[in-house]
């Protein structure tokens, strides 16, 4: 089976957030309580969360001495060799041949190692609920099985999100960059990051200026996490669920997914 992927072509993104709302709608995730904006520009909420698996960011950057407004998209990267899955002691996270990294909630014991292991800080824990699980973008695996495309890709008005075979999309990304060398930086984010991912991004400005995680090794995360995780004795796993309960007592502010009291964002 060919590995599927999403190509996020940021210069085509208009920051409309159709994708962000379509994702919430597809998974019936709750709206979060926000005040003003949670990040630069119109970003809301402040971060990915148990309820927000897709987040559009608004970045005011200088391009050739002029102010520009460039948008980014955060979601699970669907790593080829996912750190989250290799860290999971009970195989609650699974990499499918078709690309998606999916989550089996019935297996999950709530240890949250996946959260520590993910270089892109993607998986989140439902601290809000009495019976919490891990949540994250599924690459809409269930829609793919039904012959559809991810909800975000479907909603996007400008073709900024393309769904297809990973190999084909890499060639497409290279083609777009080569065809407009002034319009793109020569970097396909996700081609090599973390050993390669099934969400690929191309951009008009360096990815660090969009707040993308840059300190990701080029090799698969498994090499970094597996030895450490293998050493974890099973008894720790029971402890982790207790820790989960204490996390649930976090402050309201954190749950509101907001930066600081005043709403100041620098």
């Amino acid at each position: 089976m060919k590995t599927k992927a999403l190509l996020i072509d940021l210069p085509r993104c208009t920051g409309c957030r159709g994708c962000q709302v379509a994702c919430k709608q597809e998974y019936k995730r709750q709206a979060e309580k926000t005040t003003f904006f949670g990040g630069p520009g119109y970003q809301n909420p402040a971060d990915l969360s148990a309820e927000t698996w897709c987040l559009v960011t608004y970045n005011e950057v200088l391009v050739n001495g002029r102010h520009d407004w460039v948008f980014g998209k955060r979601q699970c990267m669907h790593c080829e060799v996912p750190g989250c899955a290799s860290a999971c002691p009970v195989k609650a996270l699974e990499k499918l041949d078709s690309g998606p990294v999916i989550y089996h909630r019935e297996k999950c014991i709530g240890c949250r190692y996946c959260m520590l292991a993910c270089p892109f800080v993607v998986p989140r824990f439902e601290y809000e609920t009495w019976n919490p699980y891990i949540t994250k973008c599924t690459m809409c695996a269930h829609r793919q099985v039904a012959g559809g495309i991810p909800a975000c890709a479907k909603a996007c008005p400008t073709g900024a999100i393309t769904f297809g075979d990973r190999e084909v999309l890499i060639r497409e990304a290279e083609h777009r960059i080569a065809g407009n060398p002034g319009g793109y930086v020569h970097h396909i984010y996700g081609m090599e990051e973390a050993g390669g991912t099934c969400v690929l991004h191309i951009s008009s400005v360096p990815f660090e200026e969009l707040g993308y995680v840059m300190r990701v090794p080029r090799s698969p995360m498994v090499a970094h996490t597996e030895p450490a995780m293998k050493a974890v004795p099973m008894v720790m796993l029971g402890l982790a669920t207790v820790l989960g309960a204490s996390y649930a007592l976090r402050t309201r502010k954190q749950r509101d997914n907001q930066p600081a009291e005043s709403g100041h964002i620098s």
Partner: protein
Amino acid sequence: MTNHWIDMKHADVVMICGSNAVENHPIAAHWIMKAKENGAIVVSCDPRYTRTSAFSDHYCKMRSGTDIAFVNGMINYALQNDRIQLEYVRHYTNATFLLNPEYGFADGLFSGYDQATRSYDRSKWAYALDPSGVPKRDLTMRHPRSVLQLMKAFYARYDIDTVCNITGTPKDVYRKACDVYTSTWAPDRVGCWLYAMGTTQHSHGTQNIRSYAILQLLLGNMGMAGGGVNAMRGESNVQGSTDMGLLYHSLPGYLGEPVAAMQTLSTYLERLTPTSNDPLSANWWQNYPKYITSLLKAFWGTHATKDNDFAYSYLPKTVGNHSYVALVEAMHAGAIKGLFCFGMNPAVGGPNSTRAREALGKLEWMVAIDLFETDSSVFWKRPGTDPSTIATEVFLLPAAASVEKEGSISNSGRWCQWRYKAVEPPGDARSDAWIITQLVAGLRKAYDAGGAFPEPIRQLTWDYGQDADAHGEPDPHRVAREINGYFTEDKDIAGKLWKAGDQAPGFAALQADGSTACGSWIYCGSYPGPNKADNRLARREKSDPAKDPLGMHPNWSWCWPVNRRILYNRASVDAHGQPWDPKRAVIRWNADAKKWEGDVPDGPWPPGEKLPFIMRPEGVACLFAVALVDGPFPEHYEPVESPIRNPMSAVQYSPVCKVWDLKSIGEPGEFPIVATTYRVSEHWQAGAMTRNMPWLVELVPDVFVELSPNLARSKGIRTGDWVRVWTKRGELKARALVTNRFEPLFVAGRAVDQIGIPWHWGYAGIAKGDSANLLTANIGDPNTFIPEYKAFLCDLAKA
């Protein structure tokens, strides 16, 4: 729109001016993106760097309210540099027409101005006529009284330095915009102009659009694929509402409003039916009598007869101004006692909303028909109000949403698309048609018991049936069939016999003798048979790209008029019917087959037999036009509230615009900052729908003010701070968003600050906040009376 959404992909240059299309019409971006893929250059002109600007190749900042200077400068650039499509201009516009000696222009005023009434005598702006009554023309366009020469003199005043001194656009940026856009003068290069409320909501909003039309005509971009002047309507069905005569000054099909001076049908027709002595002019509006008679027959059926002027006397005749602000003022003065508010939220959406909210409190009763409680339906318990002091009796009727009823909507491209009911409306919610039907029944009953002038209501044709369902919803197909029109009696037309009750095949079949009825003549042909299968609005056939390279999809829905997808398409071909731009041919004359190919042409005549602009009595498009009350050419005036003296003339602001209360106008000394209002992608209009939708509230929960870092520093404001913004009318509190996307402008020799505020908020719904319309003024464009929401003066401080 003269063109349609899909057609945007054919443009070589897309100008987005007076619109934030990418944010407020996100699907426009879908088609403009396709144009970009084909190498199009996209230009964004806006006071603020928007998501549209980010999408564009070239951004021009400008001061809000200075569009005319901006565009006049481009017109001047085109005229000075011979960047006009000469043959198009010569044959398809009135550039060659000679003007009579009474027309003149000096120091900001056209001839015929009367200071006392603040109005023009437009008879001074007339053509010089030959003895047969046809305008004199000079095809060389060198005659000093030719429109082209008079234009050259008029526009020469708008050189780049002058323009940029007004608009605040950096000169090099402006020159580049002029160069890029006027490059579409070449017959095979096309420019598409997109606008929206950033254009219209000014004291000279109609003239803003005129300036676009003039430029597009000079460049030969009207009638072309990828061209046109395209209004992106603010609501999905706003096109439908104006088509059906919901504006105060028109009847369905853009027939004129009967005013008090038109007491009989013959005076109405005399005033409104244009005449032409030019045999080359189709002068389509000569059919006015057919359209109004058919409309009256649709309204009053057998009660409308030749003997009673087809019940013309039943139509109300207006006295004075009944535009939105005028209505609010009349409510405020106690002259209007009751209000039906269908999906409308004046407490948030109109200008000077404090006054609008007060006005609602002077009504005896108000009926709000909406999906939710709106700011208007709860105005009587708004913050700071004691409900016991308000006597207005308020009814809230729950309405069915668009997906909860069957019917049609007309999009900006004039495509009328049928919609099926997806789900049942919840609870007691009913369609608007059901609510109005009950109202008609109730009024009839009341009139049965007596009352003045009962006939217009008692004799009204209202036969939309009743569905078998529980509520007896009226049948939308019957409404659609009436809009299309039908024969009221047997009629022989060119040898074909039509029976009484037959659906009319198209507006060419409509009659002035009462033998046809038609609810909106421009929709005639949309439902030409008795069965649901005849409903062309419901067609859903995509065409094969090989056969329909322009993506006009003639069998997808139906568009008015006569399914013509691009208006004025006769101007896209030369005198022999061959396209100026063969690679994007809209229509083409096949000389062998003796027929037109492609889109439905503007009239069936072979090429050369009729002039292309068939809706004008001249037969050509008007670079010089007497249609607007504020001048035959667009002249720059400052917004009524402006930080500077008008550099163009001694006339500060539009000499004919309507200012309801001069005391409510602020001076720049007290209010030094330019403000504008706008919308965001995440909210919809006055917010009743989106401020009740948690996913959208999450994205943009609070009203905010965007301002430049410079201004923020000088006021000690940081992002996230609460600030107060105030004008002569009112004040609001909002969060500050300090952004480089707003920059100060260098205008009339000094730096001027601009800020912007989205206007979606009110005190009802999940997301609450102050409406930006607390700040805006009751000022109206003199042609349409649309309020000047987009440019006013304010000051602000940290709260």
